[in-house]
């Protein structure tokens, strides 16, 4: 099963308050859909046109209409500018299915750039003329760690007349992304970097709206967090089995919880001696078949703080990769997941009521409730099971 992590960045045309490009994310039962539209011109008018386009496309997808039909509708309704003979907005749709299939639909936006196993991949497109509009459609498969970059022509034209004759162009951008892939697979870094270069090619006064959407194909888009010992110790092995059989990233948050898992599976827990980078948080570790083991309440509290700093998505926070603590680590694992399951044990550690501690520690379930709310806000599907 595959999915994608998606990150977008845009530049507004110099002097404009709003961007004439728009981007929307949607999903169906078995796929994730990214839609990017570029409205004719710039400013408010362009913005309305592109929002309208992405809105119609996303809404139709949500209603279960398939790509071909969506394209048909949009191509038939999209007005064409009488003066210039071009459509009022262009669009690109990327639909990523869980089984690895990718469907790309492009109408008049620059060719999306695809990196397959680090190499540039240019799929063949089938052309369909719908209501005088040439729509390009392609279907292919991708694997985890492959990338798709969708952009508006504002990116491609950067440098036009200024530094180069025709802007830096799709070939150069593709080459740049390919070189960058050798240094990093961090989608946020790649997109931010490319937009920064674009902006500099414009001499920091963008001549057009420029949007870049990066999609990184990922594996195992699910994660599970097991926190707190189950209320009834007789059920320990039942829940541990449920946890270990989970298909996805596995996180244990809590000392007693990790002891229980370790006892039942026979796998010993190893705490990284070098991970004690943060004074506030205890170090973290690993166990066979478990991706991350952390302390409980303090780490969850720190995770919740990070999450509440994100408005729309989890890419709003930067980390110093060399110096990450247990909560940062958990945050980074969750960032790459679509679905998150939390198993919350309800047994309370009696010591947590101790007045010697700085705050009431018996707050695990309230804390988890806040975390769930925050995760949902940044677009995650969250399931919670009390045990």
């Amino acid at each position, binding site marked *: 099963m595959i999915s994608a992590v998606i990150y977008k960045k845009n530049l507004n045309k110099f002097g404009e308050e709003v961007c004439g490009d728009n981007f929307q994310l949607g999903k169906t039962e078995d796929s994730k859909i990214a839609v990017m539209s570029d409205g004719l011109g710039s400013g408010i008018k362009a913005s309305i046109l592109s929002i309208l386009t992405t809105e119609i496309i996303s809404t139709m997808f949500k209603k279960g209409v398939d790509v071909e039909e969506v394209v048909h509708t949009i191509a038939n309704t999209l007005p064409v500018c009488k003066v210039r003979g071009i459509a009022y907005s262009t669009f690109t749709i990327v639909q990523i299915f869980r089984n690895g299939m990718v469907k790309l639909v492009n109408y008049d936006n620059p060719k999306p750039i695809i990196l397959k196993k680090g190499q540039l991949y240019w799929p063949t497109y089938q052309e369909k003329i719908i209501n005088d509009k040439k729509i390009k459609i392609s279907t292919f498969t991708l694997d985890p760690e492959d990338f798709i970059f969708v952009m508006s022509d504002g990116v491609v034209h950067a440098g036009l007349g200024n530094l180069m004759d025709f802007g830096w162009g799709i070939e150069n951008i593709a080459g740049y992304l390919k070189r960058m892939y050798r240094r990093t697979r961090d989608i946020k870094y790649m997109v931010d970097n490319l937009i920064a270069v674009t902006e500099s090619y414009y001499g920091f006064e963008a001549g057009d709206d420029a949007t870049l959407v990066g999609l990184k194909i990922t594996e195992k888009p699910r994660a599970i967090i097991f926190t707190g010992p189950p209320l009834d110790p007789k059920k320990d092995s039942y829940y541990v089995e449920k946890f270990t059989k989970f298909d996805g990233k596995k996180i244990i948050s809590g000392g007693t919880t*990790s*002891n229980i898992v370790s006892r039942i599976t026979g796998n010993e827990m190893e705490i990284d001696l070098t991970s004690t980078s943060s004074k506030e948080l*205890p170090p973290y570790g690993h166990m066979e078949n478990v991706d991350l083991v952390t*302390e409980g309440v*303090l780490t969850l509290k720190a995770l919740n703080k990070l999450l509440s700093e994100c408005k729309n998505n989890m890419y709003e926070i930067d980390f110093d990769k060399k110096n990450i603590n247990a909560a940062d680590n958990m945050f980074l694992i969750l960032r790459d997941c679509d679905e998150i399951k939390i198993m919350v044990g309800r047994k309370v550690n009696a010591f*947590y009521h101790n007045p010697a501690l700085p705050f009431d520690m018996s707050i695990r379930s309230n804390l988890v409730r806040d975390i769930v709310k925050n995760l949902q806000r940044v677009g995650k599907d969250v399931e919670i099971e009390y045990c």
Partner: protein
Amino acid sequence: MVISICVGTTCHLLGSSSLVEAINELPEKYLNNVSIKYSTCFDVCHGQMKPPIAKIDDKLYDDLSPDKIKKIIIAMVGDN
């Protein structure tokens, strides 16, 4: 000797990270004799013993402070 320092929630809150630092401050002749490990909750902090807690060669020690753990190590290594 093997020292396992508990880095569970309560031990951490009551200062287990300062124990590691304290041990690392010891002169080399002591340090050469110890290997430090981290451990999750020993499940003895619910009233039986007072955090922070560490296990030294299979025996649990509680209510530790930097000074206390240093003294214990010096005494034990000195005996050898």
